[in-house]
């Protein structure tokens, strides 16, 4: 691998990590509050379609972004209604949301655009443009630092930087604010939060709503930043990789960044090289595709550090009478 390839891989790692990171942080908020969410995939998909679809219709990516976040929030509300209000099974609700999004996006896309379940290609102001960071041009000549700054870090769309900024923000909200303390408490011991006179239901809905907004950003990035438009099933399991990254990161924001960059790197390498030849032994591309899932199973099995989920995760809260 030469320097040019290295920079290409690093650059696309950042691109491919962003939707994973946003979805992973979305899951982090939800699961830290005790609401399992395997519907990340569906929410991303819905947001991807509505952001691209509305952007194509209105010509503005910003209106599209809002629509994407709105669609994701609606599915979040369904998840909240099922798992918080009606104390249903959170996992089954997540499965339902994934299928709802997979079906409805194609149905509506076909009705609106008649292109076999896709949106038209987005152009100009219908997409997020690439942003050059300040001094990127000036620094590009500097050895080592120059390529890293101007080739890898600079020149991405806005949502890439939003995703990166979300990591410290999530850390700060969860670990340095009263809201974050309560949110984590509601995922560990909701009865204690209830005793303290704080609404368990309110906190959990807030967490599910934040999850919806972040999934909305992730989906919008996919369809209007990384790619130019929506195609059927375009999330292609990214919501589940994000879920895997969340477990890999043991439900912590900075670890989440690491896990998502790692999984993004695996995708970037798989795209760049297909089958990799390591000293005569060929690593098939399918193995690279499966590696995030294999790593997650290994982590879950507790052979390499133990991943302990929030204690009240998955259990609906029933007030004592």
């Amino acid at each position, binding site marked *: 691998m030469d320097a040019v390839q290295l920079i290409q891989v690093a650059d696309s790692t950042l691109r491919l990590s962003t939707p994973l990171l946003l979805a992973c942080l979305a899951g982090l908020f939800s699961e830290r509050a005790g609401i399992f969410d395997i519907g990340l995939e569906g929410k991303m998909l819905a947001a991807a379609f509505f952001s691209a679809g509305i952007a194509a219709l209105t010509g503005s990516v910003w209106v599209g972004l809002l629509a994407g976040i709105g669609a994701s929030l609606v599915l979040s509300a369904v998840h909240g209604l099922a798992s918080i209000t*009606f104390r*249903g*099974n*959170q996992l089954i609700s997540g499965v*339902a949301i994934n299928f709802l999004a997979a*079906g*409805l996006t194609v149905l509506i896309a076909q009705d609106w655009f008649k292109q076999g379940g896709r949106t038209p290609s987005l152009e100009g102001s219908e997409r997020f443009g690439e942003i050059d960071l300040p001094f990127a041009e000036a620094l590009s000549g500097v050895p080592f630092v120059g390529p890293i700054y101007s080739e890898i870090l600079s020149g991405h769309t806005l949502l890439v930087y939003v995703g990166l900024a979300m990591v410290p923000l999530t850390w700060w909200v969860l670990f340095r604010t009263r809201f974050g303390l309560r949110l984590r408490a509601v995922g560990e011991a909701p009865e204690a939060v209830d005793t303290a006179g704080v609404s368990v239901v309110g906190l959990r809905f807030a967490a599910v709503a934040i999850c919806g907004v972040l999934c909305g950003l992730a989906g919008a990035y996919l369809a209007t930043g990384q790619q130019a438009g929506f195609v059927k099933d375009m999330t292609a399991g990214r919501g589940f990789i994000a879920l895997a990254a969340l477990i890999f990161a043991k439900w912590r924001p900075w670890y989440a960044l690491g896990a998502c960059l790692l999984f993004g790197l695996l995708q970037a390498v798989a795209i760049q090289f297909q089958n990799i030849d390591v000293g005569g032994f060929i690593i098939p591309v*399918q193995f690279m595709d*499966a590696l995030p899932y294999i790593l997650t*199973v290994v982590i879950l099995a507790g052979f390499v550090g133990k991943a302990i989920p929030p204690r009240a995760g998955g259990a609906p809260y029933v007030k004592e009478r």
Partner: protein
Amino acid sequence: MDRMPAWADATLVPLISLFLAAVLSAIVIMAIGENPISAFMLMVDGTLMRSSGWGYMLYYATNFMFTGLAVAVAFHARLFNIGGEGQALLGGLGVALVCMYIPWPHWSLAIFGASVGAALFGAAWAYIPAVLQAKRGSHIVITTIMFNFIAAAVLNYVLVNVLRPKGAQEPATGFFPDATALPSFFDMFATEGSRLFRNSPANVTFFLALAACVAVWLLIWHTRLGYQIRAFGERESAAKYAGINPVRITVIAMLISGGLAGMMAVNTTMGEAERLILNATEGAGFIGIAVALMGRSHPFGIFLAALLFGFLYQGGAELALWTNIPRELIVVIQALVILFTGALDNMVRMPLERLFLILRRTS
């Protein structure tokens, strides 16, 4: 005392959920500018009014019976096996190996061998998540999801690099030997005059699925193991106190579940395609979740729910053919059924329970 009689729990709750799902689906159809009533008539026309429609419906229903039973057996042990898709994919590999590398003299022996191969491969794929859940406490939902993706990668690798015939472009195995071809409903029921089930994929595996329904019913309600599975699912601590080994029950329930999911491949791979192709399952593993929820984890309920989804699948194909409604409508209906019968169960149940309390008080 129960708040609701058992018959109401078994029939009214799923029927009301189905009704809600149907109403919402009708609204969706109207929203995309089609008429839900004529759409429904078209589905009935393309499915129930032609014997080939029946042939497709029963073919799909065969798949859904296997995957529905798989989810249901795990449900009885309070395990959510979301990995039916991956287990069925691996089951397909088992079927392909059995059909290609063992010279079968007759299909009646081959179907037996293929069933064993499918069940073994499916069960093996469920074994690792089961052991991880039972011994290491890894959440079985997450591990089975991960195993779905790993299964897809494994199958992709095997078909592209190992089993693909030399010179072939498509990632698929070659066709199985003629002796393994299963008799279709057309072979079995058509006469010179009637031409029943012409050009439709339903085959003898349908009866295997019916037998599986009966076997699961016997297992769950009429054997010691079934009792242990149900006791474990009802309350783990009480089951442990009664001397039931949780590791053993978790692993056995998941092995049966994975085996049943794998056996679906006998229908698709041996009965229909007669070779192993990529994505032979087409999401049937996930439809098993809807079927098991709708059928209340009872084999007879699963039989009915599988027929319903078979109807929806074939009807959906008709809609996609003749109208502007894409096949994905079925995915929406499936999602709504899962949502109402699974996640929003209490929303349907609570008002019903209140109603029955009032009725009881007045009588």
